[in-house]
C-alpha cells in the first residue's frame, strides 16, 4: 500500500504540470456523424430539401444561380479535388481562395544554396531536385510531419494512408522568377526523395493547383491520399502553410452550398456561387476563438458576400462566442455581409444554444427533418415535420434568440474521396441546415443584383424570418420563426419599406438579458423591457402579448429616434408545471417586416412534496420523432435524484412505442442520454432509470423523445411514464432560514422534519457549522482520461474542522470507473500520506467522509478506468465544515424505516459577527456513512425590512391592484430589492411595487418572501380583505364621546 501511494505522489506532480498547459479547445464543428457514405449524390433527397424550403420555387421565379456571389466557408477546409467543387456552371473556378488560420499544415523552412548537382543535402536526407530553378540561387526546405496534425483528427494523422502516423514529407520552396520572391512549393508526396516528379504548387489563390499525399491503391474504391493546396507562402519563404480538409465537414458544407457536378454529380443550392475557403478548424473539427475571429475578419476583407459559420462553441459564451458575436455585428454592419451561423447540435435542452450571433445581422439556423425526408431516408411514416432532435434550443445564456429559423438537417453532399469512395455522404446537423440557408442567401443576392433590389443583411434577415413557416408543436425557442421559405423571402424583399434598428434588453431583477427571457428556477411576476430605437426615425410599436398569461402595460410604445422606451409585462401564470413560452410582438405599421418579437419563456418546474412522498409522476404521449420536456425543482441538500422511464403496455401486453430520455442538470449540461425503452427491444426492457448522486440543486430538465420508427411498429406515438424520485434523507423545510433580527435574541430554533426515503438504517441527525455562507461547499465538473489522473488541491484544512467530505460521481461515459484517494501532507515525515481512500471496483461514485480531520494540507486524487482511451467527465464535490458549539440538533440514534418521518429541532446561538452563515444537518448512519448533508441559512444582524401592503380597492373576481411598500426598518428609507410574492419574483423600485391581482372570495393571502443580498430574510404573510361596499363611516358624532372614552379605557387603559 505504501509503495503504491508513493508512485502516485510522483505522478501528482507530473499531472499538475501537464494540466496547466492542456488547454481545452474552444470551438468545434457540429458533432455530425456520417450517417451513410454514398456512391452518388442523393438527387432526390436534395430536391426534397430544396422544395421544402422554397429554393426550387425561388430558382424558377428568378433563374438565380448564385452567380457573382462570393461565399466564405469558415470550417475545416475544403477538398479542392472534389469533381463537384472544381468550377461553376460557366466554367469559372469554384474555389477562388483557400486560406488557413490553423497551424495544422504549417511548415517552417531553412535556407540552403541551390545545389549545383541537383542533390540537396539536408538533415532529412538527400533530395533530388533536377531542373528546379531558383532565381536567387537559394532554396528553402522544411518538413511536414503527420504528427503535427491534430491527433484526434478524422483523417487520423495518416495523410498517405499507409497505416503509420509518423511519416514526414519534404517541402521545398523556391523563388523561380524574382530573387527573394518565394512562390513555388514542391512537396515530396510519394516519399521518393525526388522533387522533380512532383507538381510544383503556387499559392492557391494565384495558381489554383493542388497535390495529394501518398499513392492511391487502385484495388480499393477510396482514394488513399489527402489532397492539399498551398494556402500560404511567406514572402521570404520562411514558412509554408499546406491547406487540406482532414475532416470532411468543410467539404460537405461547401458542396451543399455551391457544388456543380453536372448531370452526374451533386448540384448544390447555388451552383454558380464561388467559394472562399477559410480553414479555422483542424482535422478533428476543433479550433480556437482567435483563429475563428481571424477567419471572420479575413472573409470580410476579402470581399465575401455571405459567410457560412457551421461551427459552435463547446465552452459556453465565455469570451469566444460572445466576442465572435460582436465581431459579426461589427463586420456585417461595415461590409454589409450576411452571416449564416449554425445554431449548434447541443439540443434538445432548453437554452442549450451557444452559437455566435448578432441579433440584427446574423441568421442562425437550426435543423429539422420533414415527413418526406423521414420517408425518403428510412421509410418511416412520421405524422408531421419534426425538429432534428439535437438542434440547439434557445435562448442563449445571455438571452439572445437562437435559432432564427430552421432548414433541413439531413443533407447528402460532397466528402473527400479518401473517406467515401463515391465522394458523397449523408450528414445530419445544424451545419447542414446552415449550408442550405447560405446557398439560398447566395441565390437571393444574385436575384437581387439582377433586378436591382436592395438586399442588405438587415433586410435579408428580416425577409427570411418574416416569411418562415412555423412547424406545429414547437415553440419559438426551438424552431425560431420556422422553416426557411426562400421564395417567400424573395417576394418580401421586393416590398418597399424601411427596417427599424431596435434592440431590446429584458430585465426581471433576477436576470438582465438582451432580447428574450428564459426564467428557470424562479417564476417572474413582472419583467421590464427596454427598447432602444437606433433608427433615425421615431417608432410607434403596437404591442401585443400573444398569450393570456401575459399582460403588457402599454398598447403602443412610442420611441423617439436614438432614444429608449420601456414597457412592463406582468405574468399571471397557470397554476400548473410546464414550460410557458410567450411572445410579445411590436409592430410599427409604417415600417416593413417584423419589427420586434420578444420571447419570454417561463419554466414552472415540478416540485417534490412530502405529501406525495417526494416523487413526481408524469404520464405522457409523444408522437414519433418528437420530444417533450419536463422540469423538476431540486432543493439543496438532497443526496440522490432518480428518474425512471417506462413505456406502458397496451391491452395485449405490448409496450406502446419507444422512447428515451435526455437528462440535463441545472446548468443545461446533458448529464445522460438513455437507451431507448419500449417496443422491439431485444432484452424486453420496458423501463430504465438513471440516478444522480449529490445532484446540484436547481432546476433539472428531462427531455423524453420518441423514436422515429414507430410506423414500423404500426404506431404513431409512444406512451411513457416518467417518474422522478428523491433518495437518501430529506430535510424539510428545504429553504429554511434562521434570522437573528432582535439584538437580544441570542438563541433561535427551527423545527424540521427528516424523512428517510432510502433503505432502513440506524442513525441520527448531527449539526455541524457554522460556516460562512458559500464557503463550505465546492462543486465542479472535471475532465479526466486514463493516462492522466485528476488531482484537486484542497489546500489548507483549518484547525477545528468538524467534517471533511469529498465525493466524485455522475460519470460520463457512465461505464467509467473512478477511484478516489485523499492525501495529507505530513510535515513531520515531510511527505504526503494517504489519509483515506474510496476505491470500489466498478463504481464511479466514491465518497470520503472524515470527522474531525487533523488540520493541514490535503489533496484529492482521482483515477479513471474503463474509459477505452476516451476523455470522461465527472462531478467533484467537497465540503469543509467547521465545528462550533453554536449549533445543536435534537435527535437520537434510532432505527429509521423507509418512508419514516421524524422531527428534529435545530438550535443556533447567534455568532458575534454579523453576516450570513450556514448550519449543516448531517444525517449519519451508525457506521459513519453520511446519508444527507443539508444546509440551513443563518443570518445575524442584517438590515431588516418593513413591508406594507395596501390594497383597498379589491372586488372579488374583478382585476385590481395591490401595492407593496418596502422600507429599511431602521431608517424608513425606501428599499429596493427582489421579492417573491406568492411564488413570483418582482423587482421593487423606489420601495414601491404595484401588482395586478384578481382575488376570489372575501379575502386574499399574500406571502412576501425576500432573500436579497442587502437585507435580512423576510417571510411574512398578509391578508387582505375586500372592503365593505357603502361602509358606515359617518361624520364624528359627539353623542358617542362617552363610548369612545370607555373603549379607549378598555383598550389602552386611558
Amino acid at each position, binding site marked *: 500500500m505504501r509503495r503504491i501511494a508513493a508512485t502516485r505522489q510522483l505522478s501528482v506532480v507530473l499531472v499538475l504540470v501537464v494540466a496547466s498547459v492542456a488547454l481545452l479547445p474552444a470551438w468545434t464543428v457540429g458533432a455530425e456523424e456520417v450517417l451513410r457514405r454514398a456512391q452518388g449524390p442523393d438527387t432526390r433527397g436534395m430536391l426534397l430539401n430544396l422544395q421544402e424550403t422554397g429554393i426550387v420555387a425561388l430558382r424558377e421565379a428568378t433563374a438565380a444561380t448564385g452567380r457573382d456571389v462570393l461565399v466564405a466557408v469558415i470550417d475545416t477546409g475544403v477538398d479542392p479535388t472534389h469533381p463537384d467543387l472544381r468550377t461553376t456552371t460557366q466554367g469559372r473556378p469554384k474555389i477562388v481562395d483557400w486560406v488557413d488560420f490553423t497551424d495544422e499544415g504549417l511548415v517552417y523552412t531553412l535556407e540552403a544554396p541551390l545545389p549545383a548537382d541537383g542533390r540537396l543535402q539536408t538533415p532529412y536526407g538527400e533530395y533530388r531536385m533536377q531542373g528546379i530553378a531558383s532565381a536567387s540561387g537559394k532554396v528553402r526546405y522544411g518538413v511536414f510531419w503527420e504528427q503535427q496534425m491534430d491527433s484526434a483528427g478524422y483523417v487520423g494523422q495518416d495523410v498517405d494512408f499507409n497505416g503509420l502516423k509518423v511519416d514526414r514529407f519534404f517541402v521545398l520552396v523556391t523563388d523561380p522568377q524574382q530573387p527573394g520572391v518565394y512562390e513555388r512549393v514542391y512537396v515530396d508526396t510519394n516519399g521518393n526523395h525526388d522533387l522533380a516528379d512532383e507538381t510544383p504548387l503556387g499559392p492557391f489563390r494565384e495558381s489554383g493547383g493542388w497535390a495529394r499525399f501518398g499513392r492511391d491503391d487502385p484495388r480499393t474504391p477510396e482514394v488513399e491520399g489527402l489532397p492539399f493546396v498551398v494556402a500560404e507562402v511567406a514572402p521570404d519563404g520562411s514558412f509554408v502553410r499546406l491547406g487540406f480538409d482532414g475532416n470532411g465537414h468543410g467539404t460537405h458544407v461547401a458542396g451543399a452550398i455551391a457544388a456543380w457536378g453536372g448531370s452526374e454529380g451533386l448540384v448544390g443550392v447555388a451552383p454558380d456561387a464561388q467559394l472562399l475557403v477559410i480553414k479555422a478548424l483542424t482535422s478533428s473539427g476543433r479550433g480556437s476563438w482567435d483563429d475563428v475571429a481571424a477567419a471572420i475578419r479575413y472573409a470580410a476583407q476579402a470581399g465575401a458576400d455571405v459567410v457560412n459559420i457551421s461551427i459552435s462553441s463547446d465552452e459556453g459564451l465565455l469570451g469566444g462566442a460572445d466576442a465572435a458575436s460582436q465581431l459579426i455585428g461589427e463586420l456585417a454592419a461595415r461590409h454589409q455581409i450576411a452571416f449564416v451561423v449554425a445554431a449548434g447540435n447541443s439540443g434538445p435542452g432548453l437554452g442549450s444554444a451557444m452559437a455566435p450571433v448578432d441579433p440584427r445581422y446574423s441568421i442562425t439556423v437550426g435543423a429539422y427533418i420533414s415527413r418526406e425526408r423521414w420517408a425518403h431516408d428510412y421509410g418511416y411514416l412520421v405524422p408531421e415535420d419534426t425538429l432534428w432532435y439535437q438542434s440547439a434550443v434557445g435562448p442563449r445564456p445571455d438571452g439572445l434568440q437562437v435559432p432564427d429559423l430552421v432548414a433541413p438537417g439531413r443533407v447528402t453532399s460532397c466528402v473527400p474521396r479518401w473517406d467515401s469512395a463515391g465522394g458523397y455522404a449523408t450528414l445530419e446537423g445544424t451545419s447542414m441546415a446552415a449550408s442550405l440557408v447560405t446557398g439560398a442567401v447566395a441565390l437571393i443576392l444574385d436575384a437581387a443584383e439582377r433586378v436591382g433590389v436592395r438586399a442588405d443583411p438587415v433586410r435579408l434577415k428580416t425577409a427570411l424570418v418574416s416569411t418562415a413557416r412555423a412547424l406545429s408543436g414547437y415553440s419559438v425557442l426551438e424552431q425560431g420563426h420556422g422553416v426557411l421559405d426562400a421564395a417567400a423571402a424573395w417576394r418580401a424583399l421586393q416590398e418597399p419599406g424601411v427596417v427599424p434598428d431596435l434592440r431590446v434588453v429584458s430585465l426581471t431583477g433576477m436576470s438582465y438579458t438582451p432580447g428574450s427571457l428564459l426564467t428557470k428556477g424562479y417564476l417572474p411576476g413582472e419583467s421590464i423591457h427596454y427598447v432602444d430605437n437606433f433608427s433615425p426615425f421615431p417608432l410607434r410599436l403596437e404591442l401585443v402579448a400573444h398569450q393570456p398569461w401575459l399582460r403588457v402595460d*402599454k398598447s403602443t410604445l412610442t420611441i423617439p429616434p436614438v432614444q429608449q422606451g420601456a414597457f412592463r409585462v406582468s405574468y399571471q401564470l397557470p397554476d400548473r408545471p410546464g414550460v410557458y413560452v410567450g411572445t410579445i410582438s411590436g409592430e410599427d405599421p409604417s415600417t416593413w417586416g417584423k419589427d420586434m418579437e420578444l420571447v419570454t419563456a417561463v419554466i414552472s418546474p415540478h416540485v417534490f412534496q412530502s405529501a406525495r412522498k417526494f416523487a413526481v409522476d408524469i404520464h405522457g404521449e409523444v408522437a414519433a420523432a418528437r420530444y417533450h420536456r419536463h422540469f423538476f425543482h431540486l432543493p439543496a441538500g438532497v443526496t440522490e435524484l432518480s428518474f425512471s422511464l417506462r413505456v406502458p403496455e397496451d391491452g395485449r401486453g405490448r409496450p406502446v412505442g419507444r422512447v428515451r430520455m435526455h437528462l440535463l442538470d441545472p446548468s443545461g449540461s446533458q448529464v445522460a442520454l438513455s437507451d431507448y425503452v419500449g417496443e422491439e427491444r431485444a432484452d424486453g426492457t420496458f423501463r430504465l432509470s438513471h440516478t444522480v448522486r449529490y445532484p446540484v440543486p436547481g432546476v433539472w430538465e428531462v427531455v423524453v423523445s420518441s423514436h422515429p420508427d414507430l410506423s414500423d411498429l404500426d404506431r404513431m406515438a409512444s406512451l411513457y411514464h416518467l417518474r422522478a424520485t428523491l433518495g437518501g434523507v430529506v430535510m424539510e423545510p428545504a429553504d429554511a432560514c434562521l434570522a437573528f433580527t432582535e439584538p437580544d435574541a441570542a438563541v433561535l430554533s427551527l423545527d424540521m422534519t427528516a424523512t428517510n426515503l432510502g433503505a432502513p438504517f440506524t442513525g441520527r441527525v448531527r449539526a455541524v457549522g457554522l460556516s460562512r455562507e458559500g464557503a463550505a461547499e465546492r462543486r465542479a465538473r472535471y475532465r479526466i482520461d486514463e493516462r492522466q489522473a485528476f488531482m484537486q488541491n484542497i489546500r489548507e484544512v483549518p484547525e477545528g474542522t468538524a467534517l471533511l467530505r469529498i465525493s466524485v460521481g455522475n460519470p460520463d461515459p457512465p461505464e467509467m470507473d473512478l477511484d478516489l484517494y485523499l492525501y495529507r501532507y505530513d510535515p513531520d515525515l515531510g511527505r504526503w500520506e494517504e489519509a483515506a481512500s474510496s476505491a470500489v471496483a466498478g463504481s464511479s461514485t466514491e465518497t470520503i467522509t472524515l470527522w474531525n480531520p487533523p488540520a493541514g494540507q490535503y489533496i484529492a486524487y482521482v483515477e479513471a478506468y474503463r474509459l477505452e482511451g476516451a476523455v470522461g467527465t465527472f462531478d467533484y464535490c467537497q465540503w469543509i465544515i467547521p465545528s462550533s458549539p453554536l449549533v445543536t440538533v435534537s435527535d437520537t440514534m434510532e432505527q429509521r424505516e423507509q418512508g419514516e418521518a421524524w422531527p428534529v429541532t435545530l438550535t443556533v446561538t447567534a455568532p458575534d459577527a454579523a453576516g450570513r452563515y450556514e448550519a449543516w444537518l448531517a444525517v449519519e448512519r451508525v457506521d459513519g456513512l453520511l446519508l444527507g448533508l443539508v444546509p440551513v441559512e443563518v443570518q445575524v444582524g442584517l438590515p431588516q425590512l418593513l413591508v406594507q401592503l395596501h390594497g383597498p380597492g379589491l372586488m372579488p373576481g374583478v382585476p385590481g391592484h395591490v*401595492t407593496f411598500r418596502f422600507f429599511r426598518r431602521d431608517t424608513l428609507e425606501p428599499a429596493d430589492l427582489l421579492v417573491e410574492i406568492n411564488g413570483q419574483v418582482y423587482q421593487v423600485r423606489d420601495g414601491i411595487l404595484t401588482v395586478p391581482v384578481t382575488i376570489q372570495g372575501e379575502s386574499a393571502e399574500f406571502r412576501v418572501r425576500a432573500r436579497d443580498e442587502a437585507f435580512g430574510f423576510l417571510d411574512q404573510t398578509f391578508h387582505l380583505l375586500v372592503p365593505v361596499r357603502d*361602509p358606515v*363611516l359617518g361624520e364624528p358624532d359627539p353623542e358617542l364621546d362617552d363610548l369612545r372614552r370607555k373603549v379607549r379605557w378598555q383598550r389602552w387603559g386611558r
Partner: protein
Amino acid sequence: MHKPTAQGAHRFWLLVAVLVALLVTTGRPVRAALDDVTGHWAEESVHWLVAKGVVVGFPDRLYRPDWSVTRAEFAKMLICALGYEEEAEVARRAPSRFRDVPSDHWARGYVEVAADLGWVEGYGDDLFKPNGLILRSEMAVMIGKALGLQPAEGLPVPFADSAAIPAWATGYVAALAQRGLLRGYEDGTFRPLRHTTRAEAAVLILRLLREVGRDADLFGELTWVDPDHSRIRLALATDQVEIAIAGRGIFRAGRRADLSALKVGDQVAVVLGPGGRAVFVSASFADAVAWDVTVDRLSQTISFAEGAETRQIPILPDADLYLNGRSVGWDALPDAAGRAYMVFDVRTGWIRILDLAVFDVVGVIRHVRLEERHLVVEVAEGLETIIAAPEVLVFLNGEPAELDSLQAGDTAKVGLNEQGLADYVEAERKR
C-alpha cells in the same frame, strides 16, 4: 442690558435691508403655500397630492382649486400619479400622434405616454384638444382606463342625470361609481358635461391612488403621540414603527389639525419624505353605535336594522371584542346585544373594535348602599335592588369609576352575571 455695539447695530440694519429687499423683490408679502385651499373641501386631498409630488401649485404658491383643468393637465396628473414621468420625458422627443399637440407643447410627452398606455384617446381625426377643458365624463373615462377597469355596461348608473352621460362614458362612470370613486354632487347628479375643477381632479386622483394602494407609504393604528417632539408610533399590520414628523401637513377627519389632536386608536396614513420623516399625516377614526344587534359568530358579522333595511357588517378576524366592558373571545359573544359600539377600519369598513353591551336593568339610581354593595334603581316597575358582584366594572360618563362614586340621580345601565349579581354598570350623570 447693554447698548448695541456699532457692529451689532450694523448687523441689525443689514437684516432689515435684507427683509426689505425680499419684500421689494417679491412685490408682496410671502404667502404660506397653497393657502387658497385652506378651509376648502378639497384641502386635505390637495395637500396630500402635493406631499406625494403628484400636483404642484402655481408659481405664486396658489393652487386655484376652482379653476378648470385642461385635458393636457389632467393627463399629466395621471402620468405623475402612477409613476410614468421619466417615460414622458423621453416621449417628449417623438412626434405626437395628435395633430394638435405640436412639438413645443409643454405636455407632449405626458399625452404621448398616456396614449401609449391606452389611457387617452383623441377625437376622431387625430386631435387631442390638449388645451380644451376636460369634462367630468372624459375624466371618468381616463381614470377608468388608468385603473384598467372594464366599462361596466349594463350596470345601473346611480346618478339622477345619468341620461345626460355620453354613451362612451357610461360604462366607466358606472364602474367607478360602483367602486365609490365617483360620488357625484350632493343633489345626486354627476353633471357629466361640466368642466372638472382642480379640486375635483385632486380628489379623484387621490381616490385613484387609494384604489391601487399608492396613496400612502405607511398605514396603521396610532399607539403613541408625542406632540412636543413631533413623533408618533404606529402599529402596522405586521410591525411597529416610530416616525418623526416634518412639517405641518397633519389632518384629522379631513381637517387640518395639530399633532396634539391626534388620538391613540386613530388610523393614520403617512406620506414619508427624505430621511424617513413623515411629510403628510392623515388621521381618521370612524365609529358608530347600533341598537338591538344580532351577532353571527359563524360568518363573523353583526346585523341591525337601519331604517327598513337590515344592515350586516363584517368583523375583522383579529378585531378587539368586548362584552360589558370585558375583553372576550369569539366564543363568548352573545347572539344578541342591546347596544353595539363599532369602530371601523377606515380602509375596508370592517369592524376593528366591537363593544357589545347587554343590559339587564336600566333606570335611575335612588340609593347606593356601599356596605351591602347594593344599588337601588328606579325602573318602570318600581324600585329594584341590585347586588354588585365583587369584580363589578363601573364606568361613569365613559371613565372607569368605583361603586362609591355613583350617586342618586345617575342613570345606570346594569348587566348581571349568572348569579344575578351586577358585574357591569354604566352610569351617566348630567353635566
